[in-house]
């Protein structure tokens, strides 16, 4: 049976778990968003005619 009553230690246990969940979720979101952005950018460049200059594309994703 799961016990969610942390009693007098709730102020220490829950922040530790909440912060851990937030950091892991943030890490996952960051890498997945970056992967999608850079893949989309590569597809866009591959689809473009080779003679078009694109060194300063404003839509380019950040590292």
């Amino acid at each position, binding site marked *: 049976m799961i016990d969610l009553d*942390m009693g007098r230690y709730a102020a220490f*246990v829950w922040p530790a778990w909440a912060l851990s969940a937030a950091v892991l979720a943030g*890490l996952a979101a960051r890498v997945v968003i*970056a992967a999608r952005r*850079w893949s989309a950018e*590569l597809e866009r460049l591959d689809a473009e005619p080779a003679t078009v200059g694109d060194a300063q594309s404003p839509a380019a994703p950040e590292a």
Partner: protein
Amino acid sequence: MFLANPDRFLRFTRPVMPVVWVLAAVLLAVGVWLSFAAPEDYQQGDTVRIMFVHVPAASVGLMIYAALGVSSFFALVFRHPLADAAARAAALPGAAYTLLALVTGSLWGKPMWGAWWVWGDARLMSVLILFLFYLGYMALRASIDDETRAARAAAVLGLVGLINLPIVKFSVDWWNTLHQPASLLRANGPSVTPDLLAPLLTMMAAYGLFFLAVWITSIRTEIVRRRVLTLRARRAHEA
């Protein structure tokens, strides 16, 4: 060596990556359930549940630096771009895990030791230095525009930081510290009771697999990013 080729790495990891993400998510869910189903510790009460997020973050954070250091070695000696991508991709999750270890350790330390932080404590200080190495690595890479120079400088820093790993590991044996000694990797076997050992090991595996998923995804992204930069440069040259 098979995966040292970026194309092969992309082909091999494409089907592997979703499996690792799903396994990490399942293990995390099981680990969370086990962590709150476990009985409270007879001495530490419910604060022992902080152990299930603190120890995995600390131990995997340490292992990530080992991965960063070994990758830096291959990047520096063999000038291998994939090794550099691997080192770069390990830095942010390593810093995040180590920060979690520091903060959750502090949240555990206050009710158990009566202090959020103890300056001069060997384990706490060596982990803080590990975190600073991660920050330094990322800051150094970001501060040099030339990516080749940035990679070489960061690889040297990454290698130097390896010296800190045995200091973190053995600090509890070599110096006086409030931190408890090793309770898993001991000559006489783990000192943690089986009720608490199961969730702890599950969470450690989950944190390890989660890092692996993040790492593989980031290395793939880094390969794609470099291709984009090369294509942009080529197009700009042609225009």
